[in-house]
């Protein structure tokens, strides 16, 4: 098939898969849409079976890594880690909203970095909401902080975000070098969030409060998940000197938390399989094949014409802002799949700049991308009683500054380490 119609077909399949993931119609689950699209492209000869196989083989370790991390986070939830974090937040905040926000920042950044943004969004945010309710303070600053840090703090480690996992594999960096390059950009992004959020919500945070007795309950974190996470992190750090792929470290961590629960009967095998989200894994694989087909048939060269090459400061800034725009256009997962192979040719640092963009950019909205937000409005999935204006204003204040600060520090770190 000639390139032009092939590219159009591949982009149409990409559009259908993304639309299915956003709209979630009951008659077309998104794993089916993505896998079906990929199969259709191979059947029509847009992508050869060999190329599709290569794309799958390329993605397989990343998807296995993701499955292990999802099971690990679910094991932490089962072990009561997140409830304990909630009690810790309320205890340490000592009835002071600004203190609570500071601890929410610390906890959300740590959970995002170690257990990925999924854990912060799905598992930590309700806990933070409940902590603010328990302290009888306005929940808004704390919930918005969680939502923002899930993205901004997800720069640090390859395991902090699925986009990082995808790029990590392509960048050829070791786990520790990735973290060493990203520590300053993450700190910069989190600092920008703190400066903006603590001022934006000054009204809520500085309300006079009658002295209330501090919450005495100060539970400790459960030992087992914290120990497993610490050992797993150390294992990630040692994986490249020891020559072990980090996916095995993640699998060992997941097994260490899950096997005892299986033996004791507190977790059922079916629940573990659900925790790994097989449907989502299929969706990622399908999306990978579709994007590979589109890239081979001209998308990569089109994107390459827009994205500057090289790792000068200006090039990195341009890559980060283009990546942020693309993430808002189509959501950050396909944006990463499209961008990373294009920028990887110029080395690992441009790949990390693209990550800064796709990870921080989605903070412009609370549903991952402007496209998703508008789409949901059009489909009337969004409650029209809800005023999204404040969240979008907050995004406009933080995203450009965080992008610029993080990218400049990435450029600096690349010269330093």
């Amino acid at each position, binding site marked *: 098939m000639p390139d032009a119609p092939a590219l159009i077909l591949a982009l149409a399949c990409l559009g259908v898969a993304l639309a299915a993931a956003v709209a979630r119609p009951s008659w077309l689950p*998104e794993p089916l849409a993505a896998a079906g699209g990929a199969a259709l492209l191979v059947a029509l000869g847009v992508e050869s079976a060999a190329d599709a196989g290569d794309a799958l083989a390329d993605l397989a370790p990343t998807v296995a890594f993701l499955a292990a991390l999802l099971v690990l986070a679910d094991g932490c939830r089962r072990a009561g880690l997140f409830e304990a974090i909630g009690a810790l937040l309320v205890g340490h905040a000592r009835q002071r909203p600004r203190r609570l926000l500071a601890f929410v920042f610390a906890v959300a950044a740590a959970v995002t970095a170690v257990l990925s*943004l999924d854990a912060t969004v799905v598992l930590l945010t309700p806990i933070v909401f*409940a902590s603010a309710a328990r302290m009888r303070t306005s929940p808004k600053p704390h919930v918005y902080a969680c939502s923002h840090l*899930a993205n901004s703090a997800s720069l640090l480690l390859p395991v902090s975000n699925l986009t990082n996992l995808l790029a990590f594999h392509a960048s050829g960096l070791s786990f520790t070098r990735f973290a060493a390059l990203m520590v300053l950009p993450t700190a910069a992004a989190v600092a920008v969030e703190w400066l903006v959020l603590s001022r934006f919500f000054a009204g809520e945070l500085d309300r*006079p409060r009658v002295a209330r007795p501090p919450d005495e309950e100060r539970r400790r974190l459960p030992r087992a998940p914290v120990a497993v996470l610490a050992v797993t992190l150390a294992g990630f750090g040692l994986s490249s000197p020891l020559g072990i792929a980090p996916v095995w470290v993640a699998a060992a961590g997941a097994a260490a938390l899950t096997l005892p629960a299986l033996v004791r009967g507190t977790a059922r095998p079916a629940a573990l399989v659900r925790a790994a*989200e097989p449907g989502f894994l299929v969706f990622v694989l399908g999306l990978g094949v579709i994007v590979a087909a589109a890239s081979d048939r001209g998308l990569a060269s089109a994107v390459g014409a827009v994205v500057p090459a090289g790792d000068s400061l200006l090039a990195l800034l341009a890559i980060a802002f283009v990546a942020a725009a693309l993430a808002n256009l189509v959501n950050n*997962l396909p944006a990463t799949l499209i961008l990373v192979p294009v920028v990887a040719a110029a080395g690992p640092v441009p790949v990390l700049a693209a990550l800064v963009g796709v990870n921080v950019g989605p903070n412009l909205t609370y549903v991952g991308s402007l496209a998703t937000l508008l789409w949901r409005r059009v489909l009337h999935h969004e409650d029209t009683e809800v*005023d999204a204006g404040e969240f979008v204003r907050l995004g406009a204040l933080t995203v450009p500054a965080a992008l610029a600060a993080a990218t400049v520090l990435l450029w600096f770190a690349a010269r330093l380490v």
Partner: protein
Amino acid sequence: MRALVWIVEDTWEMTVDEAAAYLPADAAVTLLHVAPADVEHVAGAAGRGLLGRRRPPEPERPLRAISDAAAEALLADARARLGREAELRARRGRVEREVVAAARDADLLVLARDGDHARLGPRSLGPAARFVVDHAPCRVLLVWPDAPPGLDTIPPPPGDHPPRPPRADRTHPRRPRP
């Protein structure tokens, strides 16, 4: 007389105390709390941004339950602090509009300032209280959530500058203020 007392999390105690002090003994009191729908929505909707993950159960259910339980407990504590009979009303939505709508059949609305509490002035009202005060369909008792700031926190009127010292004085080092 029907009195509506709007309480929010941080400042509910002072609002209730002022209401107890200033409402007539025969007033029929309603205590109102409004949960901001946008916060619950943001907390739940971030999950929808995780493209392609389908995690049962939808996180909004527990959030709603947490929010409802917290509002119920807050209203009950407020009634206990008020020390008299009161109807309890929990609402959810755009806070300022829900409060104005609830004040429709009230004779008096009691609320606390929700802005800068260190200075007298328009900034002592945040956006929500500002909207409610501007649109209230009844009398309003607007209380300070702590001791009101002093009159000296008002900036001088424009053009009213303190007399300048003679130019020659300015070359001298400044005397420390008493």
